[in-house]
């Protein structure tokens, strides 16, 4: 589904601020793979997502999505096949517009001059009802009035209402309180399973890194230092994972936000 072939990226090349963000990284994801990504601060996790989404052009290598080379495609064209959630719940929706208008834009059906039809509205209402947080009664309210958790759930719906080929989750529950985070994570699991989405999820929660999905990747200094899947992953504990990381990266995992439990 997703093939990253030897991509690398250096920012501010040739200046004192030169920063090697990704080094010769190769990753192949099969259709239906759900991989969690953990890694130290500045390991290049988010930069990896930016490279996949096309926020910048990689210095070398290619990005192939579902057998289509998208290396040189701009962000908004790749967005057709990629859904993305950020850590900041405010980033995924337009606060000054209503829930209905946000959903209509995300649904993206119809031509440039099409209006929102009654049938669309009913369809959105049904989809909101599945979130089970009462948003279906508030469709004409501006999104800015929602809480962080509600906005993240809405963004999740917006990103997956046309099932994308690839879903990227960048610590999307990290800014939410624990109870809300659990709820959004449950929703994520449900939506990913129902639509058989291929998914990459960055997390700093070691427990969910092992519990969710079928594959775990560990990153350090712009490389994937550990890639565990299948039987090898079953029965792995957090302690095992940390030990494997330090032998793979040659140092202790260093992340100030990491949650071990």
């Amino acid at each position, binding site marked *: 589904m997703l093939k990253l072939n030897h991509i690398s990226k250096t920012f501010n090349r040739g200046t004192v601020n030169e920063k090697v963000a990704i080094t010769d990284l190769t990753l192949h994801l099969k259709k239906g793979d759900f991989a969690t990504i953990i890694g130290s601060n500045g390991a290049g996790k988010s930069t990896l997502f930016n490279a996949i989404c096309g926020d910048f052009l990689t210095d070398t290598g290619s990005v192939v999505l579902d057998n289509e080379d998208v290396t040189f495609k701009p962000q*908004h064209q790749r967005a057709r096949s990629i859904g993305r959630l*950020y850590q900041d719940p405010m980033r*995924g929706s337009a*606060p000054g517009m209503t829930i209905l208008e946000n959903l209509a834009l995300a649904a993206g059906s119809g031509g440039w001059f099409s209006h929102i039809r009654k049938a669309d509205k009913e369809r959105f209402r049904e989809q909101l009802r599945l979130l089970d947080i009462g948003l279906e009664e508030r469709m004409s309210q501006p999104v800015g009035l929602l809480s962080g958790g509600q906005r993240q759930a809405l963004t999740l719906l917006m990103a997956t209402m046309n099932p994308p080929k690839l879903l990227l989750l960048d610590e999307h529950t990290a800014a939410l309180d624990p109870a809300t985070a659990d709820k959004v994570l449950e929703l994520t699991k449900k939506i990913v399973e129902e639509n058989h989405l291929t998914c990459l999820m960055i997390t700093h929660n070691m427990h969910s890194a092992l519990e969710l999905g079928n594959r775990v990747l560990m990153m350090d200094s712009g490389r994937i230092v550990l890639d565990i899947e299948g039987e090898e992953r079953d029965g792995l504990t957090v302690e095992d994972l940390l030990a494997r990381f330090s032998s793979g990266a040659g140092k202790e995992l260093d992340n100030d936000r990491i949650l071990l439990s």
Partner: protein
Amino acid sequence: MTLGSVLLLGQTALKLGLICSLTVLALFLSYSMLNVCDLSTDGCFTLGAAVGAAVAISGHPFLSIIAAMAAGVCSGFVTALLQTKLGVESLLAGIIVNTGLYSINIAVMGGSSLLNMNKTETVFTMMKSVLSGTPLSGQFDLVVAGIAVVLVIAVLVLFLKTRLGLAIRATGNNADMVRSSSINPVFTTIVGLCVSNSFTALSGCLLAQSQKSVDINIGTGMVTIALASLLIGGTVMGRGGILIRAVGMVVGAFIFRLVYTVALRLNMPAFMLKLVSSIIVVIAISGPYLKKQWPQLKRRLSHRKGGDAAC
């Protein structure tokens, strides 16, 4: 003051308010929706006036309206291109285009800084002859301005409800979200500024034709006047749907003109208009800010007087 002179005052304010409200609606699109403060407004307003006058003088009253709006589209396109594709800061892009337009406007007016349309057939004179003999014959200019405003509001409100319109509103709100909806925010910014500048140019074209002359300074300070009207309109009718807010823009423009016309009656010299509009903008923007800061300021002041314990 007699009832007749009051009515006349109201009518003048209404006419100018209606014509200038087209510029306010343009800023409603660029400033309130797209979140771009388009400083090319002054130049674009004059461009519309100059192009409209030049075409009308050559004998095409209807074509003059279309030509002025097309000129506005071009101006908006350049402003948008500078800020989306060429890395020019949004405010600076407007200022640059505004400066450049000064030369273009004089060129359009054939090298002079003044064009006279005393004997030119315009949409206003045409409406005057159509309405002659009817009870509305004295209000022909109000009728023309009113039709223009109703048409522009209808087009704008319908446009903002389309998918493209929603995308333009989202661009000013959260460009990331527009990109993830597979829409290019560069495209929506360009379209938004083209449409808004066509309204600005239409506004300039109608003002010039109603007063039967253009001079190169007709648009000077227009962005501040329109911004003042926009902020007044937002205060009066800022809540509700797009239609209500758009009508609020027209109401704002009318209130602004009314205040100004009354001030003129009270012997305020005409050159004070721009200062008044600047002050209104400052009050409208700083007022809410200072109101928010006031409780903190109050505590600081009372502390300085020794009335409040610091710890």
